[in-house]
């Protein structure tokens, strides 16, 4: 059910939450706890689903978020749950930062590959700025959001 809210958060994009005009990478906050509980294959599959939905919301027909999200879903599924709450909190931040870096780099590579020309360096600079801002914000918010979602997923799993 919470899956439905990711595209809404992605579109929400409030200016006050941004850093250098960039927002946190919302899908990773959901994908990390989901993959940690349900495993790599499930994470990979939902990474694909998320990518498909988010690609349909953005107008860039030539670039896709799917490769990054699939890779993140698969990698996140291989992470074991940590019993120590405090360590867990920090871990979410670091893992999401890494995931955001991975997704951002894959997206930038697509842009650079597509616009391969002399003026490539201009796009590269703004791309690196985007990646760094996104990595910082995603890592900053992940401990708050991921731990809540993880608790929610665990609870709903026990229920069924």
């Amino acid at each position, binding site marked *: 059910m919470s899956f439905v809210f990711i595209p809404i958060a992605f579109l*929400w*994009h409030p200016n006050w939450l941004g850093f250098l*005009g960039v*927002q946190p990478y919302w899908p990773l906050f959901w994908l990390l706890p989901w993959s940690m509980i349900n495993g790599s294959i499930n994470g990979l599959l939902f990474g694909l689903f998320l990518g498909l939905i988010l690609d349909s919301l*953005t*107008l*860039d027909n030539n670039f896709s978020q799917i490769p990054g999200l699939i890779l993140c879903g698969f990698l996140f599924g291989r992470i074991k749950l940590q019993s120590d709450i405090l360590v867990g909190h920090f871990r979410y931040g670091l893992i999401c930062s890494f995931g955001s870096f991975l997704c951002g780099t894959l997206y930038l590579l697509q842009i650079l590959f597509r616009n391969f020309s002399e*003026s490539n360096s201009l796009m590269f600079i*703004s791309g690196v700025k*985007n990646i760094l801002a996104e990595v910082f914000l995603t890592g900053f918010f992940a401990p708050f959001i991921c731990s809540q979602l993880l608790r929610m997923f665990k609870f709903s799993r026990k229920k069924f």
Partner: protein
Amino acid sequence: MLGTRRISTSRWWHKKKNWLFFAIFLFLVFVRISKGAFYKDFYYFISKPFWPGQFQKEIIIKSIDQESLIKLNLLKKDNIRLREILSLQQSSDNDSILAAVISRKTGGWWRQIILNKGSKDGVEIGSTVTGPGGLLGRVNNTSLFTSSVTLLTSPESKLGVWVDRSQINGLLVGSGDNYPNLILYSKDADIKVGDFVSSSPASSLLPPNIPIGIIQSIDETLQSKKTAKISLLAKPQVIDWVQILKVNI
């Protein structure tokens, strides 16, 4: 003799009056160093009730508005007459739809806005979107109730533009930051920082003469072409209401 101590009241620092003078002196030194800033600020507050009032300001603004309106109408008539003589495209300001921005992605990878008017309201793919200041982008996608606009800053955006002073056509390409690139396929193109850029009269995608931006910096390092960074007049990150111009160019 050993136990006695000289107590004198004749020293200058024992007098209150002297301290007062010293304080005044320090204050004047401060005034001198600050070049009278204190006085100017003080004057600002005491003269405030006597400033030219709001009423006077309104009259002046109204007069300026009327003057601009008359000039604009005259220029509009001239423009239409000259366009008819030269058989150029007509811009159509009458067919526009007012829409609110309901989602905004103006930083990062994706540069788009979503508007609250869709195909139900007659918005078509390719329609031009303008805001206070000038051109924002083009409608790329419509749903029943919404339409998505690719901003000029998006790497996906490529439009023909016109440099007004030197009267040359160029290509405006989004670069993923807030300053799109103007590409002129001639090394000798005459452009300067501060030149005004508008939509090209030769463009088949946009109505002519929509203000776009001002040249901010020029890069002449490339061998076959000249590129320039454009500072956009319309700022999508703060605009809440836009106009969608229907495609009938």
